[in-house]
């Protein structure tokens, strides 16, 4: 468990000019709605979240649970004529939801950076790896091309590239999958961001490479005190690197707590289901892998109450009432969104 104080020391400017206190990012009542053919799709339906300096927050959930929509909305990357984003995202004394595109551009890649999942697709095939990192630096820093290029070589060394001087000159297709993902991470870290959003950073990789990439992420995070939002559906990855976990279902956070709280004492039936699904190497062989019955709510119609109720074994009439995320059965700071008193 990380030492977390809920007492915020707001108003006291820190040495770097940023608002003091250990909260880096504060998300309040965030909604992301996409206009689709069938109607309005509430991808994120009211999320409150706080990210502390230097912590790794894992956003866990199935495909379509809204974790990517949430993280892209933080930096407005899914802004568009068919997207409505409301609520607030406080960062550096600025509300990123209300920020203009110009203001947002100053934050992107600088204060908040993103590491995308499929590095082959996420890197420009026609630019050298080093140039892509250097571009990120020169966009935000008044440095020359050579300085940016040298910084790229430094970053490539930091992320454990075998031959950084060769790698900066390589095109993405000339690098292996693991190396490309390292380029992506180097890109994310280029301007020492306060927040790094890592969107499934290891999903496209072999297991051994996954471990290496995670190790790199962890190390860099310890060194630079970067806060990381790690989006994943891989609970193994979560157990490995997360400090805190937010479990998302149908656009809402249904459970939130430290890694140990959520993994060892899950409160919400959905989290329990998620954990049960992970096959255990040490447990008894049951012959069948378990699964959560039914499929995730992804359509435009949402029940007013708990979205998980239609798939929940414990669901009762009280589940049709709106439910909020708060302290219930868990330890201090361990929140969940299940009204059932007898679900434990």
């Amino acid at each position, binding site marked *: 468990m990380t030492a977390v104080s809920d007492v915020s020391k707001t108003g006291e400017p820190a040495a770097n000019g940023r608002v003091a206190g250990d909260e880096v990012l504060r998300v309040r009542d965030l909604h992301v709605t996409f206009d689709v053919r069938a109607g309005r799709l509430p991808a994120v339906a009211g999320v409150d979240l706080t990210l502390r300096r230097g912590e790794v927050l894992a956003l866990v959930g199935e495909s379509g649970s809204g974790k990517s929509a949430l993280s892209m909305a933080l930096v407005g*990357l899914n802004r568009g004529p068919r997207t409505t984003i409301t609520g607030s995202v406080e960062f550096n004394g600025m509300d990123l939801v209300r920020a203009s595109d110009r203001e947002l551009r100053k934050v*992107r890649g600088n204060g908040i950076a993103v590491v995308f999942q499929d590095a082959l697709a996420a890197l420009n095939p026609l630019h050298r790896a080093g140039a892509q990192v250097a*571009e990120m630096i020169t966009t935000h820093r008044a440095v020359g091309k050579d300085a940016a290029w040298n910084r790229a070589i430094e970053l490539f060394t930091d992320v454990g590239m075998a031959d950084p001087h060769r790698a900066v000159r390589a095109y993405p297709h000339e690098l292996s999958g693991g190396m490309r993902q390292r380029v992506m991470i180097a890109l994310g870290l280029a301007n020492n961001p306060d927040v790094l959003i890592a969107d499934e950073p290891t999903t496209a990789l072999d297991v051994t490479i996954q471990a290496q990439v995670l190790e790199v992420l962890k190390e860099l995070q310890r060194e630079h005190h970067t806060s990381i939002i790690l989006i994943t559906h891989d609970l193994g990855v979560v157990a490995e690197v997360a400090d805190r976990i937010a479990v998302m279902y149908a656009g809402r956070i249904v459970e939130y707590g430290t890694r140990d709280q959520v993994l060892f004492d899950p409160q919400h039936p959905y989290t329990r289901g998620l954990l049960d699904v992970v096959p255990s190497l040490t447990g008894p062989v049951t012959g069948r892998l378990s699964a959560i019955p039914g499929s995730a709510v992804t359509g435009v119609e949402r029940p007013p109450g708990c979205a998980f109720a239609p798939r929940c074994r414990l669901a009762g009439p009280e589940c049709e009432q709106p439910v909020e995320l708060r302290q219930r059965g868990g330890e201090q700071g361990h929140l969940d969104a299940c009204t059932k008193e007898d679900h434990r």
Partner: protein
Amino acid sequence: MKRALLRLLAVIPVLLALSTIVFLAMRWIPGSPATSLAAGGNMNATAEEFTQSEERIRVALGLDQPLWKQYLTFLGDLVTLDFGTSFYGSNSVLKLVGEALPATIELTVAAMLIAILIGVVTGVIAAWKKDTVVDGAIRVGATVSFSLPWFALGILGVVVFGVVLGWLPIIGRLPNSLGYHPTTGFVLLDAILQNRPELVWPWVKHLILPATTLALSMAGFITRIVRTAVLEVLGDDFVRTARMKGLSESAVLRHHVLRNAALPIVTVLGLQFGALLGGSLITEMVFAYPGVGNLLVSAVHQRDYPIVQGAALAVAFLFVMVNVVVDLLYLVLDPRLRKVTA
């Protein structure tokens, strides 16, 4: 480099096949150069005299030989780069085609540049403003532009800007009064080499109508290709990465979208160059422009075999070379293609 060389060697069989087709086609179409030459010789000749002189000319031109023999002679001359002499007068094919080719290249390149400028700008805007009124207007304009036959457009241009408004010259390439004596045959180059800047503006004025006529029909096509290509790239992940970097939209477009969209566009441009070349041959007729098209058409009428063969070969060579350049351009544009044969 090896790849470029191989590509150039592959041009040879293409040109060989083409010259064979032209050779045969000219001899299969009715009418003989001997007939028209004999007719031009003596207007008062009797039927017998006419036949005799026609026969003499046939022998002199070697047209009495069996077809395979004529063909072998033709091939033999080609190999030694001897393209022959016109049946009318003593000018060599090389000289006549050489004089006409720069004019055609100027027209085609000018048309291509105008078409690319219009097409790329409107295509990018349409993609950027996808599904808006602007996009709709551009798409309609593009469809109209490439549906209109260019000769109709050309005649319209001649009437409006040449005759009614009188703004632009409608025939020729340069006024005779200027006394232009080609060094390279390219006016712009010669204006510099001969230090005659006064040549440039009349040259541009003569080029505007035919080049724009040609360009408009092609611009619409390019608009549609560019729009599709840009839209496709805009959906790519690396564009989102570029935005994540904090780049401005115009920087995203310039540094990331356009170059990636350039590949399919360049392919189409290379192919369209052929169509443009064909179009310029006809446009030259409309504007009495002294290029290969004019030379070719009058040579076909006169059954001047060597000229037709030479001119067709020159146009084909140009087309093939453009496509070689396009192939090489791929290598410049896309590093992923570079390691294939190198």
